[in-house]
């Protein structure tokens, strides 16, 4: 500590410490800790604070599992289904993005040359500067009942009636996959780019077919990139709010939308915090699983 002050001088040291303190304590640690604490509380009116109901409780979490006490159903099927659906759909989106992006990442990293590769990267980045909500809106224009895809299929004579892609959640999955492509491509690209192309050549010279080269040479090398891309895409899909609101069918909900309802129309912040904690835990479990499966450390993922 004394070294620190000696090295930076009193004024600069104070600035550094204050700024980092404000960020780490006031913006990261305390809010998270308070949200966790809050999720074990009853939703109270101001005049009830300090009263007999101002105690710790598990009721917010019980509500997610069992619904209101005395309900006919044994479990809170509505919310549990939404939760599971969110998780499974996010895994699906993650796998889809991986399948889409792996060939592109490999191509740019190993096959394409200098300036060409740079231009492709620029082309990849450009669409993602556009606002998330407008991107989702674009998918509405594409997939709506009077959208371009339906019109195309109808003129081709493949369809008689337009398909409601929004209701069938096709638009939602396409929109989510689209939204997070960049976060899959870049970790993959970075990992594959560091592979010495001679290794691929050597495997090919030894008679390995292309799929085995990828399975045994490229993918093992790219493991940290795969892990980090999958983690990012999963977490962002599970935590997405705009795309489900805009592209989800009228009857289908995303877990974040339920959280949003607790904070707005529902007006029960404690309940919403509990749901947010559950979402955070689900993400944490996913990250830990990925780390275990790919045998990589958190440092490698977050890079």
């Amino acid at each position, binding site marked *: 500590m004394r070294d620190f002050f000696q090295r*930076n*001088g*009193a*004024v*600069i040291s104070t600035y*550094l410490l204050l*700024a*980092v303190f*404000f*960020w780490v304590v006031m*913006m*990261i640690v305390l*809010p998270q800790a*308070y*949200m966790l604490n809050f999720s074990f509380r009853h939703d109270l009116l*101001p005049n009830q604070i300090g009263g007999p109901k101002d105690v710790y409780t598990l009721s917010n979490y019980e509500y997610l599992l069992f619904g209101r006490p005395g309900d006919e159903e044994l479990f809170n099927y509505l919310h549990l289904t939404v939760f599971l659906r969110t998780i499974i759909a996010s895994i699906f989106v993650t796998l889809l993005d991986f399948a*889409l992006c792996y*060939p592109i990442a490999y*191509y740019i990293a190993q*096959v394409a040359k200098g300036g060409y590769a740079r231009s492709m990267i620029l*082309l990849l*980045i450009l*669409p993602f*500067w*556009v*606002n*998330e*909500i*407008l*991107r989702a*809106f*674009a998918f*509405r*224009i*594409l997939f709506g009942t*009077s*959208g*371009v895809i339906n019109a*195309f299929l109808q003129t081709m004579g493949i369809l008689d009636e337009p398909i409601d892609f929004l209701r069938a959640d096709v638009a939602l999955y396409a929109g989510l996959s*689209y939204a997070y492509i960049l976060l899959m491509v870049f970790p993959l690209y970075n990992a594959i780019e560091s592979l010495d192309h001679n290794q691929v050549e050597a495997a090919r010279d030894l008679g390995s077919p*292309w799929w085995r080269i990828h399975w045994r040479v490229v993918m093992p090398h790219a493991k940290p990139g795969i892990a980090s891309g999958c*983690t*990012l895409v999963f*977490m*962002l899909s599970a*935590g*997405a*709010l*705009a795309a489900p*609101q*805009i592209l989800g069918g009228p009857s289908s909900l995303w877990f974040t939308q339920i959280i949003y309802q607790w*904070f707005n129309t529902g007006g029960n*912040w404690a309940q*919403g915090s509990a749901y*947010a904690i559950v*979402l*955070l835990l689900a993400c944490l479990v996913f*990250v830990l699983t990925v780390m275990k499966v790919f045998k990589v450390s958190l*440092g490698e993922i*977050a890079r």
Partner: protein
Amino acid sequence: MSSQGIQKLMVSFYILLFFLFLFAPLFMMGAAAFNDVEFPQVVPWEGFTLRWFPSLFEDDLMIEGFVNSIWIGIGVMALSVPIGLAAAIVMTQVHKRLQTVYYTVVVSPVLMPGVILGISTLVFWDKLGTFMEAEYESFYYSGMFLTIVGQSTFISAYTMLVFLARLQRFDRTQEEAALDLGATHVQVFWKVLIPFLRPAIFSAMGLAFLTSFENYNTTVFTIQAESTLTTVLAGKVRMGTQPDLAALAVLIIAVTLIGALAIEIAQRREQRREWAAKAAAAKAEREAEAIAAAAE
């Protein structure tokens, strides 16, 4: 050979499809903005029109949201750039054993879902306001303030990463030389470190502003009764039936694409200048060696 040719063709075809998938939605939206129909659609094409653009400026809600977004973006810049800079400097000085923990803590907001950052900011400052017995009009309950803080939680991590990358190339002997020559620490900071970091400061500012401007997930919880451009847009898109949205999209796309291109070009020029500088230095060194050799 011919099987390889087929493979190559397939790869090219796949790349074409991939980029089509990337750009088709944007082109569609662009086309819808100029189509003369009351509903945002591309087919059937009813003729070219520009009438959706002026109607944008009659929308007071949207303009109010836009102005708020700009202010929030400026606020986020003012908060997250100094924080990111400080965090990056501390990162280079923190003890090795602490470094992993510190890194994990400060990068965690990037990995956390945005809704959770918004929620935790909201409930925390609300509680703090109650605790301090603050007035209802005070900043603890202000949507703008909470949004700036909530967004900065993770945007500071972005700016920190920008600064870290630049700091890795910083030659500390410059700092020591200045100190030896009698400069104070504050002078060293302003006259040596900051000028060296200038390009990183500009990129961090741009990154912070753009990220803030288009943020939705965190903002939607912290903004409460107020509005930003994205929350206004989200509301409109959910109702979703006016072509002026497409017109707005075209404007935003045009502005952001020009901005992104400018940043990219600036970065490339910077890189090229560095290469040129390096090449010149190497050349000068060789010449010096040659002269020295000749002198002997």
